Each structure stands twice: as structure tokens, then as C-alpha cells.
């Protein structure tokens, strides 16, 4: 199992810190490098690489890369260098509906958090020479970037993430089906959404993708306000997407709400995991490492 990132590296994964960084590229780079520097002897290190050359050992090099056979033959220390390779295609699906623009007590809105997460994943994938694509949607597909591993592609993807704005109502099912039909080879699909809509069509879409042979990770991004419902005083709660409103006294409505949310989450977990789909719920006030670890875990399984 991967170890927990060190405290100093964690600082760069903190949403409060990340939100203050400038461009999406900087955010993604900071998160990924902070995350990787926090991994200790990670079992993921070295995957997707092939041997390239020998190099003479220098103090500070990892002893695990020392080639003992060469040492036995030549009585000299050499370490093995590897070259990364890729044959994976990754698709990032980011929900940009109006509900994703919600920000309660967290330092970033769900859309900002999801964008940084998507950018970090893209950055990580790009380091591994994986072809990465992006699809941002609400009730329609608003932005689409086909998967590619070209050098300038990452920049275009990050720029696209940076320019995302909250849209209208969400319809997660449509992009899932569209993507499932469009995929020609096995891919890794990452869905980033709050998943507060009706779960039935969403699960159906995800299973469709899975059926086409893709590995899927689903990130349910929720604000701490949505997770705890900390409101006080009677209020008219108005839905940011549908304008539906409910007058409620939080003190009385809190228990039922949290129960409903738990049931929704449990249903996703149950249905998706049963279908071999990873489901991760992330809190926008929490560091991004949990989401990145989930990705690495899925990625390693694929190898």
C-alpha cells in the first residue's frame, strides 16, 4: 500500500493552498509533485517503464536499482535506468453543471476542486506518457479534447480546464453513453461529478462504459456543507439547477437529509463496485491525495 504523503508535501495538496495558486498548470504541477514527493518507496514506482541503459552508481542513487549481476561480473556498481512507455488512453469526464459551482465552507467550489483534480490527473498521466482526453459537460457536452500524448496536449487540456464555467442542469448519462460508443480500445475513464442527480441513469451509463472494456473511476465531489448540512435557522432552500425550493428548519430536516445522502452514496458504492467500478467520495475541504491515490491504485491494477 502506498504510504501517506509527508506533512510538508501535504501542504501543497491542501485546497486552501491550491486555491491561491495562479494557473491551472501551476496548480496541477504543485499538487502532483507534492503528492509524488510524499510517497515513500511507493510500489507504483517503476511501472510502465522498460530498460534503457546502465549508468555508473553515484552516491544518493536508490540501491534497489543497483544491478548486482553487473557488479558480480565487473566489480563495479551500475544502476539500471528505465524508459517510460505508454499504451493507455485516459478520458477525464468533468461535470460543470450549476450545482458544481456551489461552494459552502470549503476554500474551493466543487468545480474548482474537480478541475484541479482533473488537471492533476492529466499531469500525472502525461508524466507517464498516457494519452489523456477531457470532456466537460452539463446537460450537453461543453468542451471536448480527444485523448493524446503529444507534448502540447497537456497545456491545451489544462487551459481548457482553466476556462471552464458553471453551466446549466447536469445530465451525466449522455456523455457516458456518447463516450462508450466512441471508444475503440480499452481505456481508463475518470468521472468527476457531485452525482446528486437521479442515480439510475448515471449507473446505467457507467455500466455501459464498463461493458465496453474501460476501467472507470468515479469521483463524487461534495462540499462539506453538503456532507454535514450545518445550516441554522429556518430557510427556503432553493436548488441552484432546478429552482426547486423547500422551506425547512435545518434542525428538523438535517437528520433526514443526511440519511438521504448516505443512502445515495451507499447505492452508488454498491452498484458501481458490483460492476467493478471504483467509487471515491471526496470532500472539497480535504487534500487531493485521496483522489490521486485512488487513481494510482486503479492504474496499477490495469498494469
Amino acid at each position: 500500500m502506498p504510504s501517506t504523503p509527508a506533512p510538508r508535501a501535504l501542504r501543497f495538496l491542501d485546497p486552501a493552498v491550491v486555491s491561491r495558486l495562479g494557473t491551472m498548470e501551476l496548480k496541477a504541477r504543485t499538487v502532483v509533485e507534492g503528492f509524488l514527493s510524499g510517497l515513500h518507496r511507493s510500489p507504483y514506482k517503476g511501472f510502465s517503464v522498460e530498460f534503457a541503459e546502465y549508468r555508473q552508481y553515484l552516491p544518493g542513487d536508490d540501491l534497489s536499482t543497483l544491478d548486482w549481476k553487473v557488479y558480480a561480473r565487473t566489480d563495479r556498481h551500475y544502476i539500471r535506468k528505465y524508459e517510460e512507455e505508454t499504451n493507455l488512453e485516459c478520458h477525464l469526464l468533468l461535470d460543470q453543471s450549476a450545482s458544481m459551482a456551489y461552494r459552502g465552507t470549503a476554500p474551493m467550489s466543487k468545480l474548482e476542486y474537480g478541475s484541479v483534480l482533473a488537471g492533476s490527473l492529466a499531469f500525472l498521466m502525461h508524466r507517464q506518457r498516457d494519452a489523456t482526453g477531457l470532456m466537460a459537460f452539463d446537460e450537453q457536452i461543453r468542451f471536448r479534447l480527444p485523448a493524446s500524448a503529444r507534448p502540447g496536449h497537456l497545456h491545451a487540456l489544462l487551459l481548457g480546464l482553466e476556462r471552464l464555467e458553471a453551466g446549466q442542469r447536469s445530465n451525466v448519462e449522455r456523455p457516458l453513453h456518447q463516450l462508450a460508443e466512441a471508444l475503440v480500445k480499452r481505456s481508463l475513464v475518470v468521472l468527476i461529478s457531485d452525482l446528486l442527480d437521479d442515480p439510475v441513469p448515471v449507473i446505467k451509463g457507467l455500466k455501459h462504459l464498463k461493458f465496453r472494456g474501460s476501467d472507470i473511476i468515479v469521483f463524487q465531489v461534495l462540499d462539506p456543507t453538503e456532507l454535514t448540512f450545518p445550516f441554522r435557522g429556518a430557510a427556503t432552500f432553493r436548488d441552484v439547477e432546478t429552482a426547486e425550493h423547500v422551506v425547512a428548519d435545518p434542525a428538523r430536516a438535517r437528520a433526514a437529509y443526511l440519511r438521504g445522502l448516505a443512502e445515495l452514496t451507499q447505492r452508488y458504492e454498491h452498484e458501481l463496485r458490483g460492476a467493478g467500478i471504483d467509487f471515491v467520495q471526496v470532500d472539497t475541504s480535504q487534500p487531493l491525495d485521496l483522489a490521486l491515490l485512488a487513481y494510482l491504485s486503479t492504474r496499477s491494477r490495469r498494469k
Partner: protein
Amino acid sequence: MNFLYPAFLLGALAVAVPVVLHLLRRDVAPDVPFTAVRLLQGSPVDSSRRRHLRDLLLLLARVAALLLLAAAFARPYAPEAAAAATRLRIIAIDRSFSMGAPGRFARALDIARGAVDEAGFADRIAIIAFDERAAVVAPPGNAADARAALGALAVGSGATRYGVMLGKAVELAAGGPATLVVVTDLQRAGWEGEARARVPGAVALDVRDAGTPPDNLAIVALGMQADTVTASVLNASRTARQGVAVVTHDGAPVARASFSAPPDTTVEVPLAWRRASTGTVSVAIDDRAGFSADNARHAVVRGAAAATVMVITSSDASGFFLLRALEAAAEGTLRALPVTTEQIAGARASAIADQSAVVLLSTRNLDRDARAALAAFVTRGGGLLIAASPDVDPAVVSAIFGWNVATLSADPAPRQVSLAATDLRHPMFRPFGSLAANLGQVRFHHAWRVKPDGWQVPARFSDGSPAVLERPLDAGRVVIFASDLDRRWNDFPLHSAYVPFVAEAVRHVAARHTPPQEFLVAHIPAGAKPEPGIQNIDGRTIAVNVDPRESSTGAMTTAEFRGMVEAPTVVAGGMPRQVHAEQTESRQNLWQFGLALMLVALVAESFVGKAQR
């Protein structure tokens, strides 16, 4: 309830703000944007009577806070509370030495005790004993404490000062209602030199006569000449009085003389006695019916010998004019001792140390011993007057005192200047007054140039250069007259201002500081007892005498006394009422309670508001 600054009550109009907000507020359930509304179940909003009650409590707390704030700024006070307060009764008893006449002070104490008995059960009583000082011998308290304080009182040696006593009484009353009972012999002298006193209208004045002063004989002054002591005897009686004055020197009778004084007259009584050089002198008379404290007067004999002034001359600088001027102006207080530089050469230079002052007219042949003796003389407190002349070498003078040689220099060429005093307050020129202008008639054609750094310059020549300079040197002082005093560089000796100038200049350098040795009881130094007589403080002998004004027996009526006390007229809206209101408000400090209640209201508002959220 009254308010000191009622205009601040307009601030209470601010209560309209929470009231209007309360009336306008209709949204019991404000809009809150949210995402997972689908998961929410509607619940009845608490708009019940309880919520209305909370709102009402909130409104009341806010309105109360604003009203209390406005009221606190308006500074409320309760006048009726002031009136209902316990009254203060201040009894001021005169203990000046005029009350020491037989039976007078006992009568005053009886009157004061009667005033204590008249006090109401709840009244607080304070006792003030006064002469030229007013002391609270019993702070506001019960009658027993007041009686005890009266029992411990005794006549003092001070003079009556009513103003001091009234000031202390007003301070004790602190603006509140009080009755001031003044027990005194109503000596008119107690108002001498004082303006009418102001007493607040809330202080009721009750003057009680302890008995008019009796006939009195007093010694009010003492003069000492070489062969005579003169006592000034005041007969403050309605009839002529005779008596005998006795002089004692260090406690031993040395002279006596009879006198006869007409009524209300002061006579000078000469007593033949050759003045001693040291010791104390007292002159006493016998007057058992009058005030005992003024029957004697005391003095300390100062050294009476004339100050000796050594005038250092030479064959070319004889000091003729200076010596004649000193002889004419000295009046026995200065004795000039002319010596040539040869006469103080060698071991004889030690004679310089015995002088009161030295005038240096020549440095020709002034040997090393004489120079050193001169420097030591000044260092130990002596005064030296240096008069510039052809016979005084500036370099020698500079060398004696270690001054820079550039400090003093002689004029290289003649100049025509006159003299002007620039500091008429200087002791040398103070006696001249407006006649100092006469110094401008003197014509000078030669002088020294003196750099005035570190020097005081009380007179300058008409070209601005210093003419008379003075500087302290250790314990002594040096005065330089920058031109000749012997008519070689000027025509000064031919002018009428010459003699007084020389006399004052020599007196000034001969004068040494001696601390005062005679005091009135009211002005005794620290450590001395406030009673007349000869006293010794830290090895120093002083004479303490009573204030002669108190020896007068002139008395006033209680009506006249009241006339000297200015009671402010209480006019509606006028200053006295305002002052009274301020004092009442200051005592009650109700605004502090207002602010405290406002804070309580705000805390309550905070709690109710929090519970509502």
C-alpha cells in the same frame, strides 16, 4: 430625574431604526441556494408565538440598549436624592495665637461643642482647626469623634487666615449641602490682603463670636544698631499703656527700658546695648491680659563687623579715586585696605584670605604667592573685582585663573565709547534704577577686549563690547570692569555715578550668601517647630516670630464677616445651579449604571438572537 446634558436624549430617536426594521422584517425563512434540495424534506418553520416572543424580546433589548446609551450620555442625576442625603456640619475653630488670650480658647471650644450638640442624629460632623493653615482634625463622622478632636485642640502660634479655612470647608462639602459653623474672635486682620471668599450656595454659613480680642501690647519689630536695640511696641488698646522692655542676649538680660504707648499706637523703644558679634537677642514685655505669643520678639545677631576690602595697588596705580569713593559710600559697612603688590609678596600673601573682597588695580610685581593666594581666595568663595588699567596685565590675570590668554586683551588703539547697563536687575545696577542712564555720560578711550563666552555681561560699551563681566568661579566670583577706575582711561571718577557704581560693585563682590535666620511661624523651614522662639536646626540657629498682623485687636461683627463671604446667587439656569448639578451628577454617577444596564441588554440580545438562529 434630571439630565446634565439633555440634548443627548435626542439620540434616543435612534430606537426608530430597530423598530422599523422589526416591522419591515417579513422573511422568516430567507432564501438559501443549495444543491441537494432533492434530498431535503420540508419541515414546518418555527413561526409560532415563541418566535414572535423572541422577536419582541430582541426588539426590546435593542431599544433598551439605545435608550440607555442616550440616557448615559445625557448624564442623569436625581436632585431629590441629593436633598435627601445626610447633611454635613463643618465646625471651623480659630486657633490663632490671638485666641490665646485668657479664657478665649476655652470659650471657643464650648461654642464648638454646642455646635456639635446641635447637629441632627444623622448629620455628619467635621472639625477644622485653622490659623494660617486649615487642618481637618476630625473628618466627616459622628459627634463622638468630633468631640474627641475638640478635646485635643490647643491654641497655636499662627495668624488668622479666613480664606484658607473657607477653602478647606468648601473642599470638604464637595458641592453638597453643608452647614459651616465658624467659631472665631472675628479679628479683622484675618481678612487682610485677601479678597472676598466664594462659598457655594449649598453651604450655609453660621458665624459665632468667641469674644472680641482684649487689649493687647505686642512687640511687632526688632531693629539692631551698633549700640542700640530698638523694639517697636504696638499698643492695641483703648487706653495708654506703660511697661518695661527687657533685652536678653543668649538668654541673659543685658538691657531694659521703660516705655509709654498711647492707645492704638506703635512706639519705638530704644534699648542701649552694644551689639555683640554673635548670639541671639530677644526683647520681651509683660502683658498678661493680652496675647502672650507676641510679648517677645527674637533675632539672631549677624556678624556686625564691616566687610574688609583689600585694594591691591602699585606706585603707578594708587587707587586714589576708588579709595575715596569707598570711604564716602561705605557708611561703616565697608573698610578699604589699600596694599601694594610688594606688601603682599611672599608669605604676606596669606592676608588675602582674611578679606571679604579684593579689588585688583595692579599686577605689577605681583609675585607667585600672591597670585596663588588670589586664586585660592576666589576658589574658597571670595569676591574679586578686577579693574582694567595700564597696570593690570591681561596675561597675568589669565594665568592666575587658568583662562585662555585670548580671553583678555588690551585695546591696541584708543576708542571713544560710553557705558550702558544692559541688565538693570543685576545687583550692581539695581540701586541705580532709571539713573543708570547717567552712566552713558562717561567717556572711555581705552578698555580691554574680553571674550564674553561663559561670562554674564550686565553692562556694555556703546560699541557693543562687554564693559562689566561676571562669572562664578568655584565658590567665589570674579567681576571685571573692562576699563580703568583711576581716571587714566576715562573720566569716570569725575561723574556722579562713579561713587555709587564703585560702592555697589565692591559690595556685590564682598557679599556672600548667608541663609535667612529669621522666620515667621507660617514660613518656618523644614524641621522647625511652629512656635515663636530661638530654635536650632541642623546646627543652624534661627529666630521664629509670630505674624505681627495677628497682634491687632481690631474686630468685625458677624454681619461684616458674612459680608466678606460672597454667596453665589442662585439664578435659574445660571452658573451656580449648573455647577451644583454637575457636582450632584458627579457624586451619583448614574451614567455608569446606565452603561452597565446597556451592556446587560446587549448580552441578552446576543443570547436571544443566538437561540433564534
